[in-house]
């Protein structure tokens, strides 16, 4: 347990270091983006005078490091600043609502694709080289090859345009919350499922096959254990390890990187907010979104590592045997 704690602290330290470096990289990247923020805000009718006044008012003329320092010192105490457009409207009030929507979408997708792909992955692994395996593998490959903007359009065409089961655009009517409109989550979640299904089921299949061919499973089978028992009690736990890694590695994407899916469906989440922020050069908002995504990626990777070492005694005890 002490080792685990130590590892946790070490990981936390490197996570913080990553975030500090990343925050500066994000700031620099946004800085070198083409286009001028003040010009962008004021549009074509802006005179040079108006642009200059706005740059001054928003502190855009200050040196780079000064602006970075101002921004990061706010972030540390949880103040993400104001949107460059809506003065007096803090980014916190814009961002968290969208993050909430994105979490609901991610959770929905998660509870659909994780059991589904693990189940079919195990099935394909157990029925290796049989027709069931071929069908599942083919389907997995096909969905993997289809980018989400293609599968999304197919889903929209079938379920929204033809069958009219779900709305074409995932918009929350004004004055209502997402809880009254959960139907808008389904198609984006299915679209994510299609992307993830191939990855995870194939990973699950190959690890299942290698576990099923291992000596201890053979021993268990020869000992006369029921096959179902062998698969679920002995094989599955070990075969899950690589799958968990893959799922964990994709959690960052799932919670913060759904820009394409959210934009395609017009879903009011963090991905589409980031897209809007980039399109309108809303620098503080871009920085806040990207930093949050970085945090999610780093934290989910860390959790995966910890979970992995917890589940896999070989890694957990490696340090102790030195």
């Amino acid at each position, binding site marked *: 347990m002490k080792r685990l704690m130590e590892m946790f602290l070490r990981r936390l330290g490197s996570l913080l270091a990553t975030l500090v470096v990343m925050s500066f990289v994000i700031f620099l990247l946004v800085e070198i983006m083409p*286009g001028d923020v003040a010009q962008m805000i004021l549009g074509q009718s802006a005179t040079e005078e108006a642009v200059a006044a706005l740059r001054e008012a928003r502190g855009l003329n200050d040196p780079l490091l000064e602006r970075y320092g101002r921004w990061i010192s706010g972030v540390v105490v949880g103040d993400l600043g104001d949107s460059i457009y809506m003065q007096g409207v803090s980014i916190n009030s814009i961002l968290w609502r969208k993050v909430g929507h994105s979490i609901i979408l991610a959770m929905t997708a998660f*509870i659909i694709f994780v059991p589904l792909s693990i189940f079919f992955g195990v099935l394909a692994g157990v029925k290796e080289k049989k027709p069931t395996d071929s069908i599942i593998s083919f389907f997995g490959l096909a969905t993997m090859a289809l980018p989400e903007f293609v599968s999304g359009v197919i889903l929209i065409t079938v379920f929204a345009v033809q069958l009219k089961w779900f709305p074409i655009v995932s918009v929350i009517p004004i004055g209502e919350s997402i809880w009254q409109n959960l139907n808008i989550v389904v198609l984006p979640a299915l679209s994510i499922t299609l992307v993830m299904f191939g990855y995870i089921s194939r990973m699950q299949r190959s690890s299942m096959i290698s576990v099923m061919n291992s000596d201890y499973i053979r021993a268990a089978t020869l000992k006369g254990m029921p096959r179902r028992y062998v698969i679920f009690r002995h094989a599955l736990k070990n075969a899950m390890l690589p799958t968990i890694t893959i799922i964990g590695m994709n959690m960052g994407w799932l919670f913060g990187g759904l820009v394409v899916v959210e934009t395609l469906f017009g879903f009011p989440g963090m991905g589409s907010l980031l897209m809007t922020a980039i399109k309108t050069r809303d620098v503080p908002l871009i920085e806040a979104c990207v930093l949050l995504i970085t945090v999610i990626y780093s934290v989910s990777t860390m959790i995966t590592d910890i979970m992995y070492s917890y589940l896999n005694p070989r890694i957990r005890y490696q340090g102790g045997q030195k």
Partner: protein
Amino acid sequence: MRRTMLVVLLLAIPMMVFAGGNAEQVASEKKAPVKQIRVAEQVPGLITPGVWDGQVFSMNSSIYEYLIEINAETGELDPVLATSWETNEGKVWTFKLRQGVKFHDGSDFTAEDVKYTIERTQDPSLGHLKKTDFEVVESVRVVDDYTVQVTLKEARPTFVYLFTDYNMAILSSEYDYASLGESKPMGTGPFMMSQLVPKESALLKKNPNYWAEGLPKIDQIAIYFVGDIDASISMLESDRVDVVPFITPEIQQRVDGIDGISVISPYQEQRFISMRVDEAPFNDNRVRLAFKYAMDPKVIARSTAKMELNDGVFYNETPIMNMLAEYKELPLRERNIAKAKQLLAEAGYPNGLSTELYYASDHPFGKELSQTVKELAAEAGFDIELKGYTRDVYLSQYWLNVPISITGWGGRIDPSMLLSLAFKGGGPWNESHLDEPVLNDLIEKISSEADPDQRMAYYHELQEWFYNNGPLINVQVPYLVAIKDNVVGYRQPLTMLPQYKYMDIL
């Protein structure tokens, strides 16, 4: 087996929840008792009048009001917050104001507010977009609560038109627009801000104290901020919104033929194809003429907007729109490739010349127009390289500094507002870098001439100058709005401000 059951259950529960939500929501939409119009607009930038970039017209034009507005049907000036105005030779202007008007916060509208709004244009910390236009104001005097007198430094017979500009909404002198203007916009308009979700939506409710009897006709306007025009149209198709303004011709084709949806064009916008005259090759008028001879207005109309010339798309070689009273009908230049080639040869380019055309690729008609111009000009020997950038990059990095550019210009009901900004030596938006004494003089005379007939004569002279020497092609393309057939009375004059108070939904 238990696990399989669990998986099935896990999948089934959310499905049931979502399907249930769907049915409920359809029911609640059907029994909506309020009369509302739903609009999908771009995500707004700054919205406080003065620095408003002109996005989400439906929102600002409903919350704020102006001294005067343009009647969308007649093109005349209609009194709004001013009931009448008079001038002494265009130098001293007296406005009588409407009595009994209240701002949304309950305060009274008086002459002080008009004084505040005008003086605010000169606030150096604000970067007011109308600062230059209002520099001509010498003083604003409050005569009494409902009379304002504006004295100008020099005569401006068409000064009153400046008050139709969308950034000249009348603001309350007691409201803190610096800190509340973006989050709680407040004016005297027919609708009041009820709920604003940043980057997502706005709900506007009818102003119960609105001064005009019987207006507005609807109870509320729901505005969705949608960054993507395709998503906006999907919302229109699936009956989630009723109006989608500022669509592109490609989108128009997609919407055409859908029952219950029409595309209307309340007014025309201008696309200026400008040649830079202080550098080769366009410093030679023969090159400019050759370029103009290479164009074919009919082809431009058809391939840019899928419309016929003079039926939705208009074309001339001057800064004056065809629909304005000041427009002088000059013969349309017939396409003449031989003549164009000859002019180029005379100017020292017997083998043609290479140049670059810059434009905003994400602006409606930008791609279509630039491509057409390139191909038409190629036959006369112009080898044009197209340089398309997103609008912000185009405006901030290239505009005003390139050999040929295509830029969108809103129409002005009083064209003199545009002339000194864009065609006079030293003007801030002088794309062509024009500094012709004859032209500068004409523009000066137009803005100070009090006699309307004489002013018209100057306008005609100016257009002839442009026809013979000008570096400009003015293609007027429709501003397109996709709208449900049950929305009636859509009005949006050349000021671009839609008048939702007159609109109704059946």
